[in-house]
């Protein structure tokens, strides 16, 4: 994380601390800060807007109830996406996509190449291409790009090993690049 990112997260720490003390307005402010990105994240897995909003509401309510348990305010976003991930997985499981999830869990590890960060300049292409990726690839790319979480944070949010995250991110980037090229070519 760069120093500027670190600075930008400091005020968030204050809001988290206030919300942890039961300040609803502070919690609402946190919702304002993260809700649009969280909605985008959830909508990449749930096509229906209403279902996505239901999930969002559940995520925020769970977070609000459990906030007093959060020891490190810095981990707020990791926790937020962990809960969102769990809710989405619950839903996908209910939709009988469990096998897909298991298959990905069985993926072998591939050494992750820490190269120059992809700039993802072609935002519109990326937006459309994301929908074509597998849920697992989509999720890991969004956490990296949208939230700029570190690999360790992603591993924590998704309850995966660091190696699996590296491997998944590697394949996800390849898949995204392929999709962007295909759409661009069309």
């Amino acid at each position: 994380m760069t120093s500027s990112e670190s600075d930008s997260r400091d005020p968030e720490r204050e809001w988290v601390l206030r919300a942890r003390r039961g300040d609803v307005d502070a919690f609402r402010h946190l919702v304002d800060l993260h809700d649009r990105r969280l909605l985008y994240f959830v909508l990449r897995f749930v096509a229906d807007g209403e279902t996505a909003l239901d999930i969002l509401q559940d995520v925020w309510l769970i977070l609000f109830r459990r906030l007093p348990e959060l020891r490190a305010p810095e981990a707020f976003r990791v926790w937020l996406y962990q809960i969102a991930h769990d809710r989405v997985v619950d839903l996908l499981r209910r939709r009988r996509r469990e096998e897909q999830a298991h298959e990905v869990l069985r993926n072998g590890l591939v050494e992750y190449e820490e190269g120059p960060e992809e700039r993802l300049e072609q935002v519109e292409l990326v937006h459309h291409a994301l929908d074509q990726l597998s849920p697992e690839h989509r999720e890991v790319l969004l956490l990296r790009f949208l939230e700029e979480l570190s690999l360790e944070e992603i591993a924590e949010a998704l309850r995966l090993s660091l190696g699996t995250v590296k491997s998944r991110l590697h394949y996800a980037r390849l898949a995204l690049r392929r999709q962007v090229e295909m759409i661009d070519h069309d």
Partner: protein
Amino acid sequence: MTESRSHADRVAALLALEDRVGAEQYAAYRRRLDGRLRRAARRRPIRPRTLAAAAALLLALGGLASFLSDSRRRAGPPTVVLRELTRDDVIAADPHPYRNVARCQVVAVVRAGPPVQQQGERRVPLEVENVFRNETGKELPAFQCTGEVLPPAPTSEQRVLVYLTYSRQQGWGCADVVPVDSPSGRNIRRGVERCAELLRAPDSPDAKRLYERLLAEGRGGLDEAAGCALCCRPDSRSADVLLRQLRRLHKRIGEPREGPGGWVSEDDIEQLVRLAEVLAPLRESRAALPLAECARMLPRGRRAPIYRQLPEVCATAPVDLKAKVRRLVAKELTEHHPDGRDRAAAAAALPALSVPAR
């Protein structure tokens, strides 16, 4: 998109592309979330120090709350009581959940609250949760209903989709009510939401791109709800994406098939009919030949719905194209074992497909 664009800008641009949740829908969700958060905060265990501070503030807050509550009561929106279903002839003849979206001024999901006794009758308050359509141009009032609208009266917390009509002269009416808590109800709700989204698409500054997104295969393609919306509000900017779907279908139908009789699948037939229905009001002549060719490849007895749309599809077609379509349709009349309905539809279409003699 330039290199100098910051990461935050790119993220903002990415988020702006997501339009599956409308502004009203999002606002309703935030109101709902706020309410739940307030209730959850009340249930949260309170620390002793907070308790003492709260006690000190209680008297002052009490006065303020009382003042606010009074003023809110005075300034609150009027309550509309829905007493019976009021359907016009069109809705009465065809109370279709998706077509009704275009016919009604307001379509919303409401949650029934605990019944109250007011002015000698039992009323159920209806809390508006999601507004899919509001063509009244103003904020919605509070709603209550009596047992006649929803027999039996909805139980507390039950959610229903309400189709409301509104005009200055007639006031409010309830055209239909559909429970949405069951799995089938949830499907209808999803379809209604999709239908409402597509009905709004022509108002978008970039409608063409919006159609591309809303009609993408991953979003359901031209499903029943989308078909209804496009029939109710045809828009030529949807033509390109529909034509692409038609070309794909044309290719698929033309491929050799396995199975008994080698028939085209029911899904493909349904899709073809829907495409013909939405392309006809657009008078999209580019669709004429693929539609006619597809119709000829359908099993006997299933071609009539396509033939019926061809005159309108060909309304602005060049003479040569019209002649080609006419030749294909005319073949129906020379079939050895024609189906009566196909033959009748083909015969009815031919005069409109005639071309002036050279």
